[in-house]
């Protein structure tokens, strides 16, 4: 194992971590408002395909990214419409959204399969910072998406925990009727949170097709949306802990095939299971501890709100 290999491992850890973090942040925001959205995989697929198709049309990666965010937000809003406006079962609607998003993305992307990318978001050069040994390649030559993930994480922490708007969002996830009584529209808050969550998932999808592996293929998300859903639970609905979890899960993705080049014999299939195993472990800890202190999950998560039923 040489130095370049270790740097490469850390670089891939940060890069995959940011991919998972973008999607998980979106899911965390939606869940904080009380809406569970299991459609992350589908929203990422829609973001991935929209970004790639628009990049082919415009050759502008930033326009492509914007399209991916809008596509993710739009398809996320379908879930919002069913669960918030119609009060539909959130698990069923979210699973449908995954199937819809993955299928629709495959359909929309048919003409883009096998075509070289129209535009890419290339790694950022931070000048002197990028030349620092170890830290340079690991932290300062990453894709713009990595820095977007950091900014999005800080912003979501600030807004959720330091502003009145954030208080209203969190309140909607804890007790919708109280939020309503306080004069906030639960429907607007939840719709907004789900749409923003979809936008972030769309950005994560675009990270795949505009930066990480600039190409479109059906199935390119490959289950990473589900890791993001697990990550929210693993991170106990806190942006900081979700970030740590993202790095840890990113490490398992980076190790998946790299372990072989380190000469370590360990099944990549077992390694792929690790995020889920860790999440189940955290769920066990949460449920054991919940006898003494409240669960970190938003109390009204998954519960439809109708004013008449108050």
């Amino acid at each position: 194992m040489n130095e370049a290999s270790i740097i490469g491992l850390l670089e891939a850890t940060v890069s995959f971590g940011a991919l998972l973090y973008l999607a998980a942040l979106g899911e965390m925001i939606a869940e904080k408002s009380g809406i569970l959205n299991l459609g992350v995989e589908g929203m990422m697929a829609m973001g991935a395909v929209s970004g790639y198709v628009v990049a082919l049309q415009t050759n502008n990666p930033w326009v492509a990214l914007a399209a991916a965010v809008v596509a993710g937000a739009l398809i996320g809003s379908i879930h919002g419409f069913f669960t918030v406006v119609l009060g539909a079962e959130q698990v069923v609607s979210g699973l449908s959204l995954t199937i819809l998003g993955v299928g629709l993305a495959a359909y929309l992307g048919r003409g883009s399969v096998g075509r070289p990318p129209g535009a890419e978001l290339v790694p950022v050069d931070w000048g002197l910072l990028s030349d620092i040994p170890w830290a340079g390649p690991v932290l300062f030559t990453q894709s713009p998406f990595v820095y977007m993930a950091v900014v999005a994480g800080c912003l979501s922490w600030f807004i959720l925990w330091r502003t009145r708007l954030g208080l209203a969002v969190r309140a909607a996830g804890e007790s919708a009727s109280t939020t309503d009584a306080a004069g906030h529209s639960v429907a607007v808050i939840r719709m907004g949170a789900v749409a923003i969550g979809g936008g972030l998932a769309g950005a994560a999808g675009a990270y795949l097709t505009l930066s990480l592996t600039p190409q479109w293929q059906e199935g390119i998300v490959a289950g990473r949306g589900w890791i993001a859903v697990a990550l929210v639970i693993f991170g106990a609905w806190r942006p900081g802990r979700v970030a740590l979890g993202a790095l840890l899960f990113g490490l398992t993705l980076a190790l998946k095939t790299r372990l072989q080049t380190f000469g370590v014999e360990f099944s990549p299939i077992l390694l792929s299971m690790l995020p889920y195993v860790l999440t189940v472990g955290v769920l066990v800890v949460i449920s054991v501890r919940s006898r003494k202190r409240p669960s970190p999950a938003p109390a009204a998560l998954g519960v439809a709100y109708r004013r008449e039923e108050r």
Partner: protein
Amino acid sequence: MAVSDLDHVGASKANRSEPLWLEGGAMRRQIFGLLAVVLSLTLVATACGSDSDSSTKAAFIYIGPPGDAGWTWAHEQGRQAAAEETGVETAFVEGVPEGTADFANYARDFIDQGFSVIFGTSFGYMDAMESLAAEYPDVVFDHIGGYKANGSNFGNTFGRMYDPRYLSGMVAGSVSTSNHLGYVAAFPIPEVIRGINAFTLGVREVNPDAHVEVVWTSTWFDPVVEGDSAQALLDKGADVIAMHQDSTAAGEKAEAAGARWVAYNSDMRAFAPEAFLTAPVWNWGPRYVEVIEQAAAGTYEGGYYWGSMADGIVDLAPIADDVDDIVKSAVAARKQQILDGTFHPFQGPINAQDGSVLVSSGDIMSDEEMLSMMVFVEGVIGSTG
């Protein structure tokens, strides 16, 4: 995850008090709507089926989309070539998953429409094709890449990809300066191991000091994993990346790192123009023509066809312009010997990875040995299990 989901389901059900018939009604309407669509599709399909004629028609069932520049793309090129050359009517359906009833449903649909030749282009269609062949003895089923045949209307087609793999190894070994080459590979099965071994033997013919390091991705198609595996090999100092995968991700990583790339399936140079060296490629057209003509003449025998470079089913894509002419002529000379039958990539002496003798001097591996190959040759870094 699962535990939490169940919690949410439970919680929302407990808190819900609206009449259940409301949702049930909506769901019933959806089901009726769906039924109506399915029924009308069935009517259309039946109507189409009734006007079948006796002339040969060939249907192709693909695992992926034909635009993927990889496996399915190569088959689609073959279908188009066969349609043009034989003049028979052809049709295809794409993205049919393995291990589901979908394959049989599409095949039956084609047969009802009068198609008399069914090509299944993925390994996992094998058992479905075998049972359909027994059910429809008048229809020819030609399966790509499996190991079953029934001696009448169900046969197997594949190509000796190890020949162009060997030649691509000669090109790769010639351009490597670090003598460390990487190979991103899907699964440790004989087909893939055979390719890695042939590539390595080609590399070491021209560069005896070189090693080929293998990374298994455990997927045929996941560009993120394929690209990262290539990156791991590049980080370790590999300056040429070869692959047995269906996406172009490994090539893109090689391009970004200033390394070189041996592609697979088709000429993928558009994806990494600087890195691209060459590619062992499939050319299914001639075989498809042969099967269709045999089916039309009633001479299809349902055997095992393992075509060679001389048959034209496999080939080497044109070598990149910047590769030295000496290398190109050495590769051309070897290719000619393979075509003439005077050279075989698996002719002895060949040592196994652990240094033991795999093929003695003067011997050539039999087809059975090659089809069950599960050990690496000397010069490969990695494990087959």
